[in-house]
């Protein structure tokens, strides 16, 4: 689609260079650790070396002898203020600091406050904690057995380790289809525990002014407004009320869902600042970040598909066990404990489906956050896209063909899925056709057949996912009761430049550019003249923040609506300046002209100036509008990814030779940024597919607590991504746009896994658990006698 605006205006469809990049590329960003205050103190945290046990004693005397160590805060100290615990965003509870029991390795046990980062670290090393270790519950299946110890004895009425049971769909009708179906396939699969591993760890600078009773917290958060409200709710009793709390989220070095929750470290820093009346800074190190902060995924799924003999899918049934660790500390909308897992019927039309999830407590760190994922969509898509391949192999069909035969046809939109979603728009065949053409699908299948003859292992993996993004409509979506709208406030200055503030918070997505382009598209002001601000609760309008690919669907739409309000006012001013009626005006981006007399025109800048200098009689001065946008529906982007892998029969190494990603995210605001989002997402899908996994031994020790063992792919491991797109606009978003930030993270793992399984299918392999490590592949090859 050709852009509607000129390159000077740079509205939608222009690959404008990112406005934020000059400061990032020159090392001039303002990240949390760049902030400092006179007299600032440091917090460092004593953490539990064991996964489960009683605290017998905490001896702080040696720490307090160290030069520079001022205080050591324990759970008992916080208990005096009832701040030793906090609610999670899922209305579960979580310790800030323990008073008697530790529940997972690396749990916060005490906070050391010192005058320097070094003294704080020495203080941590000198705090002596005596534990009485207990046998931890690490296996989520064992956690549900009758003889399992009840972990959350602090919760009244909790008699087992089940957190909740969730289900969706018609079980009876689904079971009936399975009973009568020609073909049933089943796979058990685990989407393992992973970590967002953002480059910047978490941290904050809490600055309490005891004279004013005012608290400013600079912190790494994706949702500053919600955090301020939570702070006001949990700390109201110690005198912090919402008007006296300012949360500032500065530049963020990657969030990916991991910077939505409130971590104990933030609360300890705030408590320390309030108690001491001094600014207190807390910055996690990498190992603390990996070992203690919220994980993602960890869904054990038992999936079945019922089909007729030709492979036409009739029903889907999934039973899931979700390991949440010590607390349900995910950040999903309140009414969706299993997130949007019910998107699991994906791109395929079927008669019915039934999905259930049991969530359990174990002695692992709490979570799980939606890592670059719109709440459990990654798990759902992996499950479906893997088992659809199993079905294809079972009925002897090419996996691409089987998908095509089951696609929801484009005429069927808006489509009502068996589990209750109304898909806004889609053309799945178009994305599939484009992906197959880009990669040369038929030639690859011929090459694979030839290689198989020679004993070489090559596989082609297909994934046709449907995403659900942009939470969400207020009738269904809230977090702690706050509806999931988002907001924009646009003000045009007299000289025709503008500031636009939003309730979201960029963590690298490029909001300063795309939001400016949205305003440019609607107002015809050059995007270069639109200053975008987010993240300061004192100035930005209230919003729920950035995650779940919701910024464009919600705050972006709010920006459009606010800009349109301004344009309506500008039209009235233009009519006044041109001395014609409003109905006689024509609009093209940036200019109002008189119908039939195109040389008689005024620019949007002229209107802006007049809004402050030469108003029509009775009009309110200024040029400003605010919009709180409650989306009518979510957006459902989709795509087809095709991956080609080669497997080394000696070492079991999987090499991704090619990867084509065709995405459809509706109308595109900035093609370059979309492509960047896809590249990043694909790489973050490659990680869990082949490398990343957070594992524990039976004693509860984290086995991947640093980057030595938590293997994040680098540029060396990353293949040259090939991207393409189709455009199927959203019918309800004011720009026809959909979210895009998470499609690739969701779509890449099953495409890669399917490729590996495809390479081994002739050996009788139907499934490989991710991450598909070389030793796992070699084990399969060796067992089948084909390892070299």
């Amino acid at each position, binding site marked *: 689609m050709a852009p509607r605006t000129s390159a000077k205006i740079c509205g939608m469809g222009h690959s404008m260079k990112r406005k934020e990049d000059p400061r990032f590329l020159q090392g001039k960003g303002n990240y949390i650790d760049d902030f400092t205050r006179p007299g600032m103190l440091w917090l*460092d945290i004593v953490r539990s070396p064991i996964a489960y046990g009683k605290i017998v004693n905490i001896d702080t005397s040696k720490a307090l002898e160290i030069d520079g160590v001022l205080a050591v805060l324990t759970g008992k100290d916080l208990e005096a203020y009832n701040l030793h615990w906090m609610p999670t965003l899922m209305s579960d509870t979580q310790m800030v600091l323990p008073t008697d029991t530790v529940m997972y390795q690396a749990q916060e046990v005490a906070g050391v406050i010192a005058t320097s*980062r*070094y003294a*704080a*670290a*020495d203080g941590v*090393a000198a705090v002596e904690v005596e534990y009485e270790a207990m046998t931890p519950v690490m296996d989520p299946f064992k956690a549900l057995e009758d003889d399992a110890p009840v972990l959350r004895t602090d919760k009244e009425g909790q008699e087992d380790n089940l957190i909740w049971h969730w289900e969706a769909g018609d079980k009876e009708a689904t079971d009936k289809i399975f009973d009568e179906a020609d073909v049933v396939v089943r796979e058990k699969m685990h989407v393992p525990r992973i970590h967002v591993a953002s480059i910047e760890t978490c941290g904050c600078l809490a600055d309490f002014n005891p004279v004013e009773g005012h608290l400013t917290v600079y912190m790494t958060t994706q949702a500053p407004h919600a955090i301020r409200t939570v702070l006001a709710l949990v700390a109201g009793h110690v005198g912090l009320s919402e008007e006296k709390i300012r949360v500032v989220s500065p530049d963020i070095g990657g969030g990916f869902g991991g910077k939505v929750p409130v971590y104990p470290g933030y609360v300890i820093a705030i408590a320390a600042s309030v108690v001491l009346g001094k600014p207190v800074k807390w910055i996690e*190190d*990498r*190992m603390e970040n990996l070992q203690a902060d919220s994980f993602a995924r960890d869904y054990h799924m038992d999936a079945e598909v019922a089909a007729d003999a030709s492979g036409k899918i009739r029903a889907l049934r999934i039973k899931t066990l979700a390991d949440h660790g010590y607390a349900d500390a995910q950040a999903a909308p309140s009414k969706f404990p299993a997130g949007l897992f019910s998107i699991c019927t994906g791109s395929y039309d079927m008669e019915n489906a039934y999905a259930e999830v049991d969530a359990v407590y174990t002695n692992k760190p709490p979570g799980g956050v939606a890592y670059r994922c719109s709440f459990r969509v990654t798990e759902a898509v992996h499950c479906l896209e893997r088992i659809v391949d199993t079905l294809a192999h079972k009925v002897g069909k090419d996996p691409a063909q089987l998908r095509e035969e089951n696609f929801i046809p484009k005429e069927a939109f808006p489509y009502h899925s068996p589990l209750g979603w109304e898909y806004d728009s889609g053309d799945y065949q178009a994305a599939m056709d484009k992906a197959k053409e880009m990669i040369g699908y038929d030639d690859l299948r011929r090459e694979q057949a030839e290689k198989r003859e020679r004993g070489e292992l090559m596989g082609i993996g297909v994934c046709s996912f449907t995403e659900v993004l942009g939470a969400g409509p207020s009738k269904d979506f809230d977090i702690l009761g706050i509806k999931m709208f988002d907001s924009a406030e646009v003000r045009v200055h007299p000289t025709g430049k503008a500031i636009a503030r939003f309730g979201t918070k960029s963590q690298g997505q490029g909001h300063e550019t795309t939001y400016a382009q949205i305003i440019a598209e609607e107002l015809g002001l050059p995007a270069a003249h639109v200053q975008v601000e987010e993240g300061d609760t004192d100035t930005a309008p209230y919003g729920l923040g950035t995650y779940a690919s919701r910024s464009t669907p919600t705050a972006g739409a709010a920006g459009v609506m606010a800009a349109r309000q301004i344009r309506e006012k500008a039209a009235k001013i233009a009519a006044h300046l041109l001395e014609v009626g409003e109905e006689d005006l024509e609009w093209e981006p940036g200019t109002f002209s008189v119908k039939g007399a195109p040389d008689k025109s005024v620019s949007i800048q002229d209107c802006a100036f007049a809004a402050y200098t030469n108003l029509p009689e009775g009009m309110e001065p200024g040029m400003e509008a605010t919009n709180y946008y409650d989306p009518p529906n979510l957006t459902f982007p989709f795509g087809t990814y095709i991956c080609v892998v080669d497997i080394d029969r*000696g*070492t*079991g*190494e999987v090499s991704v030779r090619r990867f084509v990603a065709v995405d459809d995210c509706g109308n595109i605001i900035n093609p370059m940024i979309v492509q960047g989002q896809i590249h990043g997402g694909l790489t973050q899908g490659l990680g869990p597919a082949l*490398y990343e996994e957070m*594992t524990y031994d039976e004693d509860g020790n984290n*086995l*991947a607590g640093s980057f*030595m*063992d938590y*293997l994040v*792919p*680098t540029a*060396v*491991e990353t293949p040259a991504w090939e991207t393409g797109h189709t455009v199927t606009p959203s019918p309800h978003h004011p720009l026809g746009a959909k979210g895009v930030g998470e499609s690739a993270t969701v779509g890449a793992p099953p495409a890669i896994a399917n490729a590996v399984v495809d390479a081994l299918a002739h050996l009788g392999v139907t499934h490989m658990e991710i991450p598909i*490590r*070389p*030793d796992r592949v*070699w*084990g399969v090859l*060796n067992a089948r006698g084909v*390892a*070299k």
Partner: protein
Amino acid sequence: MIPPPFDYHAPGSLEEALTLLGRLDDAKVMSGGQSLLPMLKLRLATPANIVDIGRVPGLDSISEEGGYLRIGALVTETALEENATVAARYPILLDTAKVIADPLVRNRATICGNVAHGDPANDHPATMIALRATMVATGPDGERSIGVDDFFHGLFMTALQPGEILTEIRIPSPGQHSGGAYLKLERKVGDYAVAGAAVHLTLDEEGTVTQAGIGLTNLGMAPIRASAAEEVLTGQHFGDHSGLRGAFRRVREAIARTPSDDELIAAASQAAADATDPVADRRGSVDYKRNMARVLTTRAIHKALERAAARTPAGG
């Protein structure tokens, strides 16, 4: 990630460094610091004193003289990678340097530090075993030479005495018909080896192996010399199955049931695998690691033979 307090010393000469080491209690020598600093930050090492030899003059040279390649204590991996002599005559060293950590680390990390650290997961030890290198240690009583086979004593344990500094590594210059290769299997770039194999072969005019060196990385508590595998290869003639010689050989193989090249290499590789004693961890099972020792040894032998064959008689 914050190290405990320590005293830092930066001597300006080797004598001063040795004096400091003699005088100070609980002192640790630092060259590039790329292994020591992470251990300090994790508080796994807590020496009271760090003696940084980074400013000691005369230790940063790399030269080929007297039948040896001499690598000084402060020669970095990057300097090794960029050295023309190494590239032309010691490709196995280049193989090794290139797969260590990442370029930022290699800009500071030293070859001698890599060896002196005594970590069986480090890459240079296996290569030094294959090349039959000599370690030169300087202490209060002067220099002494330690053969590579006497150098590695176990996990983080070497023949270096307290007060000694590994000042130089001497590698015998390769013969005219020789070649070597180092292969490392890693989970991702910068990782320690799942398994690594260094193979260096010296051939005579006829193409018969006169000396074989095979070292293995991260497959036991110390770097491993695969002696049995070396013996399998020594005295064997590989390749060149064309012409009269090839015909003779094929006849001989048929009559005497002499093993083929592939069978010999497989036997040597199996012998190398049998010499390992790996532990199961996130890099794989014992079975997997043993098999990777075998697979990598096979591949490294082939590469070493290729390189030996490609070398001109002038050795260039």
